[in-house]
């Protein structure tokens, strides 16, 4: 934990600044509520179970969308990475679509699926699937030829070569795609929930706006940040680090 005290002091000063600014009366409370009010709202929200329900609904959508993205993205990345003609055709299309912010899929999704869970899942999947596909694709394409030669030399070919050499060799790159896919899924979900109000954290956030309740807006934003940090630090960063260590990338 480097800079532990430095960090603590920084965040305490930030809170203090916020506190002083909010109580200076310079801005009205509906624009800048004091921190204690925000934490109070947060506490009340958590106690009433409303926040937990929203978190549960959002995470469920996220997980479901992410799993669908994995199930589509990894195989798609593998086949486009393996077959040149697929890469030139389907791969180029996917690369082009990746430039489209996933929320741009919402109108299409609403027309296809109506105001339903499927519509929001579709947006989440479109957010995550492309980066997972592209990372898997480049990982498969960039496997060191030496590994493939060594594997073939020992008698590996076809599916065995692919599953036992190409896939594990591509894993560091795939993990980066998984991490990026997760964060894109998370962003897409929040954007979708804001625009398409149906429970979830985005809905709580929008409710705060409707009720002119800035404390709730900030409290929900805080929850969103905490959840993002939680998954990134506890899951994906650890996974990435473990893979990098095992593959020997972090050793000179």
């Amino acid at each position, binding site marked *: 934990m480097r800079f532990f005290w430095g960090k603590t002091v920084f965040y305490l000063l930030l809170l203090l600044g916020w506190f002083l600014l909010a109580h200076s009366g310079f801005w009205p409370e509906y624009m800048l509520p004091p921190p204690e009010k925000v934490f109070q709202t947060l506490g009340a929200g958590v106690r009433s179970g409303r926040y937990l329900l929203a978190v549960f609904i959002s995470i469920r959508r996220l997980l479901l969308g992410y799993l669908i993205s994995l199930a589509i993205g990894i195989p798609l990345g593998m086949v486009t990475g393996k077959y040149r003609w697929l890469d030139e055709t389907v791969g180029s299309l996917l690369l082009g679509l990746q430039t489209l912010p996933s929320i741009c899929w919402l109108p299409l999704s609403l027309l296809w699926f109506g105001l339903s869970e499927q519509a929001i899942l579709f947006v989440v999947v479109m957010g995550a699937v492309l980066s997972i596909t592209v990372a898997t694709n480049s990982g498969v394409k960039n496997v060191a030829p030496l590994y493939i030669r060594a594997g073939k030399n*020992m008698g590996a070919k076809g599916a065995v070569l692919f599953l036992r050499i190409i896939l594990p*060799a591509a894993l560091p790159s795939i993990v980066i795609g998984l991490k990026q896919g997760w964060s894109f899924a998370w962003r897409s979900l929040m954007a979708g929930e804001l625009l398409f109000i149906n429970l979830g954290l985005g809905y709580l956030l929008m409710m705060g706006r409707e009720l002119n309740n800035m404390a709730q807006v900030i409290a929900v934003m805080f929850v969103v940040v905490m959840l993002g940090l939680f998954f990134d630090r506890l899951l994906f960063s650890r996974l990435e680090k473990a893979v990098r260590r095992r593959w*020997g990338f972090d050793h000179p």
Partner: protein
Amino acid sequence: MNEARALPCLETLSDHDREEEPTGAPFFLPGEPSRLYNRPKPRLKLEIRNVAKTFASAKGLIRALNNINLAVQEGEFACILGPSGCGKSTLLHLIAGLELPDHGEIRLYSSQAKKDSNAERLIIFQEAALFPWLTVLENVLFGLRLQKLGAKESKERAMRFLALVKLENFANCFIHELSGGMKQRVALARALVLDPELLLMDEPFAALDFQTREKLQRELEEIWRRTKKTIIFVTHNVEEAITLGDRVILFSGQPGTVKQEYALPPSRPRQKESPFFTELAAEIKRDFQVQDPGRELVEQVTG
């Protein structure tokens, strides 16, 4: 040139000979313990006839190998010596079956009746080509798992070959935890465990420091003596070729051709300080200079 003399490793050993083997325990290849002692008279292992290979490059076609003819006897340690880019690695890839020749043929005479694997011509690369996502033991097990062999039997076998390269205590290490020399030893175990007909070594010690290289040369010589494998060893280092080879095959490049062969006496280990060694090194160096003055090989010898 080399047909006339009997290679030491190819002599038929009787049980009586085994008693007098000076170097300790005989090395049994699992499953076929009789192979070691009922060896027939010297016989052909590999035959390369009129092989040519051309590559397409940005500058047009490059003839990497031109009309190569070579025969390797069973159990022989053949060193192919030549400068970088002379096509010797290409030849090794052709022998390994990783690439196909444009012309000519390569024949391998298998000593085993049944061979259900493709792993009969195994190559050891300059960089060990070990899989970093597997442990040392799992790397050695890799080829065995592709064959139909019981898990327990495979593991025992892998451990035995790790012991052969003195790495049995590192079985559960990851590859990045090993030194360069240890990696090459794992690569050697990973190849030997599959009991290949031919062991092809592509400058395996070139990236190692001087002391490690000498140590590994001695170990390889010992392993070769115990396993009686046929080895084709590619190097650009004259001393390495003379230290290890029963025969040194000098290549010259662009296009790669066999320039000269040198048969070496069976006595081992070879002493670098002996007159024989220094004279032969000088001779090879001279032969090379005559053909290709100022090439990299010469620098390697003098430097």
